[in-house]
């Protein structure tokens, strides 16, 4: 059971063990369950802003988060990267506190939901404007190079199919390539940008066709296949870490929910839903682990229950914490004392 899986990909430095797959599955499941919880809280009117979940994106997202090393690497997640955040080491409380507006959260109520981060721990806090993270992570990596401490470090970020249309993304990725930075960029191609299908965002056959045009190494991966995700991402991260320069990964899968919890996604093509692309990677992973004997229904139920308890606790704690107090808040946009 602990024998390393043999996987087809070349150039792979690390073998993916079944334990590794199982660990990753736990993170993905935890992410799904946490976001389901946010979704119900949203429907109950208990969340202050919007809720954008990563249903379908857990495997590729979690794989990137899992392959990056907190304390060494940089990670700039995007809106559907709850799984990657958990895998990278973000606490459940950071998440629940931010969604629920606790003043004890990393954003202290000043920003919400998916915008949270702990920049001093290598976890960047995104802004809404798509495409801006590739250059920010590049800047962190360039500063490591200047300090002479880049060796062995990697930066990772994610972008949607829609986000690839932004000029900011192009500039950031191109710059990373020019600087030969150890940046791993995951294109989470979930077939839609809000309601817009891929045909409205790009005219190439596959987005990974752009890797060559940037001078990056590029990989396609089935985002519903847990082993493939781990394999391709760990390979790319290893290659970046070893000095092979920036890596582009395109993962294909379907967004299994609306754009946000307010959206019923009526526009999603039924044919895609029915295809392999539309399958639920989490179900696939569960089946795989059951086949391999790593999981049975009892074990799954135990896992589920323990995760549920953890989540419940983190939600409950955030809910009982104080809101920010506008009269005690330090209303200053500058950290310098100039006035």
């Amino acid at each position, binding site marked *: 059971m602990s024998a390393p899986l043999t996987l087809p990909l070349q150039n792979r430095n690390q073998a993916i063990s079944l334990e590794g797959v199982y660990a990753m599955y736990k993170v993905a499941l935890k992410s799904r369950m946490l976001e389901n919880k946010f979704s119900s809280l949203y429907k109950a009117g208990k969340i*202050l802003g919007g809720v954008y979940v990563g249903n379908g994106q857990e495997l590729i997202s979690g794989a990137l988060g899992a392959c990056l090393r907190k304390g060494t690497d940089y990670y700039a997640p995007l809106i559907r990267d709850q799984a990657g955040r958990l895998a990278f080491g973000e606490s459940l409380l950071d998440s629940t506190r931010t969604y629920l*507006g606790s003043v004890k959260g990393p954003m202290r109520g000043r920003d919400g939901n998916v915008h949270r981060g702990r920049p001093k721990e290598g976890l960047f806090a995104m802004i*809404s*404007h798509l495409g801006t993270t590739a250059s920010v992570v590049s800047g962190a990596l360039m500063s490591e190079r200047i300090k002479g401490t880049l060796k062995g470090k990697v930066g990772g970020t994610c972008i949607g199919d*829609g986000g690839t249309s932004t000029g900011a993304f192009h500039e950031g990725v191109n710059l990373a390539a020019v600087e030969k930075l150890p940046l791993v960029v995951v294109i989470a191609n979930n077939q839609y940008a809000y*309601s*817009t299908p891929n045909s*409205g965002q790009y005219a190439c056959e596959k987005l990974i066709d752009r890797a060559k045009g940037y001078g990056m190494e590029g990989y396609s991966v089935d985002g519903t296949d847990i082993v493939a995700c781990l394999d391709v991402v760990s390979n790319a991260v290893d290659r970046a870490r070893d000095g092979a320069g920036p890596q582009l990964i395109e993962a294909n899968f379907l967004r299994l929910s609306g754009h946000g919890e307010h959206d019923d996604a009526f526009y999603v093509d039924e044919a895609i839903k029915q295809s392999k692309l539309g399958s639920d990677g989490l179900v696939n992973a569960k089946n795989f682990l059951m086949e391999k004997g790593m999981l049975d229904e009892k074990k799954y139920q135990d896992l589920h229950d323990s995760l549920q308890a953890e989540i419940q606790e983190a939600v409950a704690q955030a809910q009982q914490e104080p809101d920010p107090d506008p009269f005690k808040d330090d209303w200053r946009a500058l950290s310098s004392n100039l006035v």
Partner: protein
Amino acid sequence: MSITYIEAIKQAQDECLAEDDSVFIYGQDIGNFGGAFKATQGLKKKYPDRVLDAPISEDAMIGVAIGAAINGMKPIIEMQFADFSTVGFNQIVNNAATHYFRTGVPVPMTVRLPSGGTPGSGPFHSQCLESIYSHYPGLVVMTPATIEDAYYMLKEAVQMPDPVIYCEHKFLYRWLKADKLGEPDLPINKARVVRSGKHATIVTYSAMVHEAVRAADALKEESDWDIEVVDLRMVKPIDIDTVLASIARTGRVLVLGEGFPWGGIVAEVVKQIVADGFHLLDAAPKTLNSKDTPIPFHPKLWSTHRPTPQSIAQAMRELLHQ
């Protein structure tokens, strides 16, 4: 048969499309989906070739509008949120806005900016950008505060030969409701006296018009102050004459805006008031804006960050006792 502010915007666009073949709408998710706020719902079906989904490319979306406008069309660009227009900023302020002056060829395009704060929207889905765009020569900037203005101003914006930045306030979208669309009562370049009074004037625009009226009502109730409220409606150019006429009646003025406090419309109005109406003033003009920080996500912070009827009334008390 009722109508909301957002429905007025939809209806105006529908009629623009129906009446003028050179009008088209371009924006993210505005086709089948009907737009993030449903301002174009159903329009793709009626005008399949003229309601077009755009990629997430704000810079290029504005570029498209410029090329089309030069070529005789009257494009309407929907930004999904005003905040994202910063990505198309360069094309707006340096390309669209300068084109007429540089070449003599006008650029009749309208950029719709879903603007302003709503609770829980945070720093990047709540911004007011009218001050930024007004700074640049070559742009007309509209900030409708009523259902009728939303409708009539948009229809005129689309027909105007210049680039118009049309700031529609998200908070008003469904909050403003009426039985039916009223008649137009003023040319779009005239400010409107929304509430007449004699002790002081509040000059404002967009959603803050309603907060100002609430504050004025409260002050009436509280201590019988009669506060006049002037809605600028269009913030560039400004109808300063109506503002000055009001101050001639009241002698005191608060200029109010939802946006950031530094520079911008509010400061510009004060500048114009003191330039031409200094002698009319019985007290120093006061101003009120949001705080000078990014817009906070948490509703408790947000509602202190922006002006409220309470903070407006407090500013008015100070003004009246000066």
